[in-house]
């Protein structure tokens, strides 16, 4: 078939005309308008319409959006669910929700009520939404190619068993989660079976359990997020080929807290992140072929805690600054590479002035080895005896793996 340029132009103009015509149809919702509720407005709207919600309070729940619509709030109108259940459910492609204030989602022990739930839909956009007093916040279920942008989720979770997650993705691919603020929910951002996701510039703080939590989600990118003061930090499990770049993991301080928990993570990249004041910076279990580079570990209890079955990992060009333990390692076999890191505990010298220390650094102290075997011994921390045995082990290693060392430790920290 030959393509006639005139035909193409004609078709383009035709589609442009129809979309413009429908887009211009705007339905207003307010106390004195024809439509006083979102439900009525949706019922009478046709595909492609824009529903403009004027300022006010609308007591609604179980609002189902079943056609491509744009719902826009003016000055954050309040959609109050009155704790009766789910509030908004999107069940159509190309839906945009913009600028609403959604509150009072009903708590249930049998179903996961969400403030905004997207079900089997494509190309959704949820932006500038504020969610408060919620159970689940934004719940994306089997929906692809969407964007969750610039929302604020403020929960008031007290207990894990009756609280939900801020932003949850389940069986959803190619979604962008960007510039959201999530606070005081159970898990800030939660992903399960979701691939090719971009999580960027989010701030997830003060959550009950994890700031970020994902499982079985491959090829995802986490960039420039901040996770601070969460109950247990960030947990990532059973995923492949993820990238974590330039994130900040801060102040996850408590008995069972960590900056990041890695479990069964393979072929990942963890670069240029900051781990500051966590009980454990990174807790690694059964994770292989991961590249850790350019990270800053500052004042953590343990910078890195390796719990076994971790092979072919590379740690290079990281800064280890003033951690109580730089590395805890519980096996005699070492297959991981440490090179070109800066260790604040390094006491070697550099005679040829090339910026690289002339004697190797051993990041595992004997005491951390002992503590691994017998956790109770930790109460002897910082006693003179412990310093003495650490020193003797440093001089002639007996218990710690012989090849677990950084042969080229840097003399000055990376900037």
């Amino acid at each position, binding site marked *: 078939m030959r393509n006639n340029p005139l035909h193409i132009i004609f078709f383009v103009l035709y589609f442009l005309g129809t979309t413009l015509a429908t887009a211009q149809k705007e339905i207003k919702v307010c106390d004195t308008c024809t439509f006083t509720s979102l439900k009525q407005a949706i019922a009478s709207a046709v595909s492609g319409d824009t529903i403009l919600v004027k300022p006010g309070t609308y007591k609604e729940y179980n609002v189902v959006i079943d056609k491509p619509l744009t719902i826009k709030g003016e000055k954050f109108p309040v959609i109050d669910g009155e704790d009766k259940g789910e509030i908004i459910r999107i069940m159509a492609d190309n839906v945009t929700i913009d600028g609403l204030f959604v509150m009072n989602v009903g708590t249930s022990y049998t179903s996961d009520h969400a403030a905004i739930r997207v079900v089997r839909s494509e190309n959704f956009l949820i932006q500038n939404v504020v969610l408060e007093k919620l159970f689940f916040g934004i719940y994306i279920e089997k929906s692809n190619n969407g964007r969750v942008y610039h929302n604020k989720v403020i929960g008031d979770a007290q207990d894990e068993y009756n609280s939900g997650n801020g932003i949850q993705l389940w069986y959803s691919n190619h979604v962008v989660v960007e510039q959201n603020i999530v606070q005081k929910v159970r898990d800030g951002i939660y992903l399960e079976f979701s691939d090719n996701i971009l999580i960027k510039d989010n701030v997830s703080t003060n959550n009950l359990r994890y700031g970020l939590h994902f499982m079985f989600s491959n090829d995802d990118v986490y960039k420039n997020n901040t996770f601070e003061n969460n109950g247990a930090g960030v947990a990532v499990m059973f995923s492949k080929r993820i990238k974590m770049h330039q994130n900040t993991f801060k102040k996850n301080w408590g008995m069972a*807290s960590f900056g990041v928990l890695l479990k069964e993570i393979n072929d990942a990249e963890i670069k240029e992140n900051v781990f500051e004041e966590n009980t454990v910076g990174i807790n690694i279990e059964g994770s292989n072929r991961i590249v850790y580079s350019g990270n800053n570990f500052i004042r953590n209890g343990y910078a890195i805690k390796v719990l076994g079955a971790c092979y072919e990992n590379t740690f290079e060009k990281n800064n280890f600054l003033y951690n109580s333990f730089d590395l805890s390692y519980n096996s005699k076999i070492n297959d991981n590479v440490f090179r070109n890191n800066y260790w604040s505990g390094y006491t070697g010298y550099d005679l040829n002035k090339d910026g690289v220390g002339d004697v190797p650094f051993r990041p595992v102290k004997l005491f951390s080895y002992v503590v691994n075997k*017998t956790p109770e011994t930790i*109460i002897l*921390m910082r006693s003179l005896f412990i310093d003495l045995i650490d020193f003797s082990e440093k001089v002639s290693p007996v218990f710690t793996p012989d090849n677990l060392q950084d042969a080229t430790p840097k003399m000055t920290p990376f900037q």
Partner: protein
Amino acid sequence: MLKILKYSFFDLIRSRWSYVYFLFYLGLGSVLLFLNNDLAKAIITLMNVITILVPLIGTVFGVMYYYNSKEFTELLLAQPIKRSSIFIGQYLGVSLSLAMSLIIGLGIPFALYGLFQSNEIWDFGLLLINGLFLTLIFTALAFNIALYNENKIKGFSYAILLWLFMAVIYDGLFLMTLIAFQSYPLDGFSLVATMSNPIDLSRILILLKLDISALLGYTGAVFQKFFGTGLGLLVSILALSLWVVLPTLNMYRKSRKKDF
């Protein structure tokens, strides 16, 4: 007794060693604060110093003072003064002058640094209280050792051995016990073992205050639960006081019977 206390105290205040001791703490405090710029970190380093150095200096100074002032003591014994007041007075004179050097030496740089506006003042206070207790305890132990040993060399060796035992060997035995009995619940044992060594007790008290407790895992939780309560604090202060009172009582008993 007060007169002898006063005499010993001023005698020591005038001595060179008090100044050295005072200047050492002054220098240490200033260097730590003004080169480190982090109050919490400085307190941790100071903790290491206090739990190791203060007992050492207390023991050595105590033994040294007793042997040095022996002739004067014998002169005093010829006077109509109660024996106990001579020895207790001397002991208090030594320990208080040491404690004063410590508190003023560390206090000045911290006060200059602006401690009173900071939240760490309680941690610092605890540090000083521990330092005070350790001084009292180890000077008392040193006087005991000196009272029992006429031989200077023997006395000195016992004193050093005592310090070595408390500061190092005790923790080694403790560690070995923990490892040997690791399949048993050890929380109760750890608590008791910590309580019965003043150096360990001060170390744990400071560590728990410094928010490092989260690192200490399950055992730490048990400790936190115990020491975090008013009762725990009371018990540990009591344990430290007992460490002061018992050697002092023994000193009193021994000095009454001792043949000079």
